[in-house]
């Protein structure tokens, strides 16, 4: 038996089986990788480990003892600490105060400041973390905050530390410091669960690895000796990766969307591009390159300060979402939760919100035709929901995305479909379904613009790629010119090398 044992963990959310019968063990002094596509069940497993959620079935054992904790506080007290992507620090307090939160050394309610600094200082030193304890957390960089989070785990003498995508917002130098710290913790005999989808990091850091897929255990490697990257990727996606895109060549027609020197408050340099009927145009770039900002201008989500948009040769005068929708341009935003789904309302209402005006007479709705529309798109897009009346919040990310697509497709006369990070947080199966749908829509004559930060995705599904960097379009490549290096080089500001990002 291992030090930390997951045994037959099963968890069901309304409408989704997040985890089914997952069992594996991790030894003391080991860094254990946990990999899987988005929606594979990694975060659910971590939530159960942290006491935030409860498994429907199965148990977690640490050092042979079943952990029956019911809250994150309990998990804390049992030496289990999870460090989330969103860090849980109080910005207005100092590092020392954050690290002492919940157990301030105090005399009659008055904090013993000296003692606090001594305690925290000693712990930080022993962990080899070098941060000024007196600084307020809000003045720290993300990387430094991450260190403070880990320091918290060290302070509490955690036995099990889980890190959820710890490097996602770190620079490579900060990552190095993090890795050194993890190595040190390994030496002290802690169990470390390392959740990441960066293969390089996992192969570099981890002693053992578990791969989850669709809530099930896809593979467990007690040692990474002899395991190849391709093998792990195949385990994650459950098939050869080459066919996940299923690219189909199409005939393209006339220019549908023409964006000319468009600029706005958040996009200073004017940007221009075109998309033809039947064409899938990809926009690649690093986060903050201006892709989403450009798309928000095109669809009128943000006001534009200059430039013009034409659809099928007709100038689009409107600069608000209502107007551009009527002109045939729709946008599936990257932030599904904030800009897409209407929480608390049904799948049906989420589909009909925009196209509703086609089902009315004097403002009164034709219920039958609304229901029929909703049912049509639920079926056509294979939305997995118990019924059209289900609250959209209970659907998985992929199904929510399909509902949003349904919302736009139910609009009659969409000519330009812009999808921003269409497959973020979506499981593999739904991914291919969404790609398939995009091909279909392009085939039917729509111009499609795909914004994505996943290079394989844009290379896999697009006819043409535009690369953005620092708010400008820095390169344009047709499918026969696609090459990873060239695209990355165009995406990077000059000071970085492609290799730093490729990893």
């Amino acid at each position, binding site marked *: 038996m291992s030090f930390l044992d997951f045994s037959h963990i099963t968890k069901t959310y309304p409408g989704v089986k997040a985890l089914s019968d997952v069992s594996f063990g991790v030894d003391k002094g080991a860094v254990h990788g946990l990999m899987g596509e988005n929606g594979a069940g990694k975060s659910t497993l971590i939530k159960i480990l942290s006491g935030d959620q409860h498994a429907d079935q199965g148990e977690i054992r640490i050092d042979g003892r079943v952990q029956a904790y019911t809250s994150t506080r309990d998990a804390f007290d049992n030496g289990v600490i999870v460090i989330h992507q969103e860090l849980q620090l109080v910005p207005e307090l100092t590092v020392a105060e954050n690290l002492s939160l919940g157990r301030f050394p105090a005399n009659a309610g008055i904090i013993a400041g000296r003692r606090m600094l001594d305690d925290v200082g000693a712990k930080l030193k022993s962990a080899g973390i070098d941060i000024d304890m007196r600084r307020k957390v809000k003045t720290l960089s993300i990387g430094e905050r991450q260190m403070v989070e880990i320091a918290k785990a060290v302070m509490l003498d955690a036995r099990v530390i889980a890190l959820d995508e710890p490097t996602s917002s770190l620079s490579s130098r900060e990552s190095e410091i993090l890795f050194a710290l993890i190595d040190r913790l390994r030496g002290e005999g802690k169990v470390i669960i390392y959740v990441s989808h960066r293969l390089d990091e996992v192969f570099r850091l981890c002693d053992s690895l578990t791969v989850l897929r669709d809530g099930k255990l896809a593979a467990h490697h007690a040692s990474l000796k002899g395991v190849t990257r391709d093998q792990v990727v195949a385990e994650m996606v459950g098939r050869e990766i080459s066919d996940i895109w299923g690219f189909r060549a199409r005939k393209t027609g006339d220019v549908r969307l023409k964006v000319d020197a468009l600029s706005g408050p958040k996009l200073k340099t004017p940007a221009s591009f075109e998309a033809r009927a039947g064409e899938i145009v990809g926009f690649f770039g690093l986060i903050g390159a201006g892709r989403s900002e450009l798309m928000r201008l095109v669809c009128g989500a943000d006001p534009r300060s200059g430039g013009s948009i034409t659809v099928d040769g007709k100038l689009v005068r409107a600069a608000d979402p209502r107007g551009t*929708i009527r002109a045939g341009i729709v946008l599936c935003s990257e932030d599904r939760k*904030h800009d*897409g789904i*209407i929480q608390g*309302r049904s799948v049906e209402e989420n589909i*009909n919100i925009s196209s509703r005006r086609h089902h009315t007479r004097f*403002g009164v*709705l034709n219920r039958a035709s609304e229901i029929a529309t909703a049912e049509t798109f639920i079926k056509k897009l294979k939305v997995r929901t118990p019924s059209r009346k289900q609250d959209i919040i209970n659907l998985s990310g992929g199904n929510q995305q399909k509902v949003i697509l349904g919302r736009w497709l139910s609009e009659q006369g969409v000519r330009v479909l812009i999808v921003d990070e269409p497959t973020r947080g979506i499981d593999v199966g739904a991914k291919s379904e969404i790609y398939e749908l995009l091909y279909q829509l392009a085939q039917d004559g729509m111009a499609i613009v795909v914004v994505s930060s996943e290079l394989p995705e844009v290379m896999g599904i697009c006819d043409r790629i535009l690369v953005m960097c620092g708010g400008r379009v820095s390169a344009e490549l047709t499918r026969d010119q696609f090459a990873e290096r060239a695209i990355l080089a165009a995406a990077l500001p000059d000071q970085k090398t492609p290799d730093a990002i490729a990893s």
Partner: protein
Amino acid sequence: MTDQLKKILLGEQGLVVIFVVAFALVSALVPNFLTDRNMLGLLQSVVTVGIVACTMMFCLAARDFDLSVGSIVAFAGMVAVMASNYTGSILLGLLAAIACGAFVGFINGVVIAKFRINALITTLATMQIVRGFALIASDGRAVGINSSDFYQLALSKLLGIPTPVWVLAILFCIFGFVLNRTVFGKNTLAIGGNPEASRLAGVNVDRTRIWIFALQGVVCGIAGILLASRITSGQPNAAVGLELSVISACVLGGVSLAGGRATMSGVIVGVLIMGIAENAMNLLNIPAFYQYIVRGVILLLAVLLDNLRSSALGRR
């Protein structure tokens, strides 16, 4: 057994079930409760709260808030009385009252939607401004009604049921329909659910919010007219604290203060529960001071129940 009970209570119609049970209990236990006269009295007592709750439901469903309703009701009542006394035409008086209500609501809506001022603050301000107008117009005194036809509004009956109760019932029907079967109603719920997503989906968010407040003003005007008619005068201090009763009734009826969730049936039940509690306590001669406590407790229990229901639905 307990599972089934839980399912019923926490289900979609849980509130209605609780209402029916409470009604049956009160009928059996409180003498003189289930009589024609008391029932009509009860309904008449909830007319003002019920009418205003119709549009407050829209306001809350769109994640907004309106504290100015009590003041608008008093102000509209004053306007109705003074304008009909002055012109000699009741119809003109009524129209003036409704127009004034609509105007105040419209101002609320424009300030909130276009200038993006917090609804709580905006209506807190208009609540005081409008109350001030009512007091200034009448010099702080009640203004008597000249024409007896005006009283008849509240006293007249159709099929044995007082006119104000009919008005209430009609408004319940109209706003129930508007909420569920019109673009306006669905957009209201969508805005409350996620304003930014609604805007990006092509909903005219600003205009919808302005309409909601303007309608709220119109409805307050109607409530003000009926109230003035019932108390046979325009009282500048009428309907103080009405906003809190109305919001309580809505919340009791399952309207979410976070927006996006509201049903007409829930609001009707909420209004009636408040009315029944008050009526039963009066029949039992419970002193008014204790009634405050009971009302507060009912509201807390209702919100707790709602919370349980939300977590049972798996929402976070």
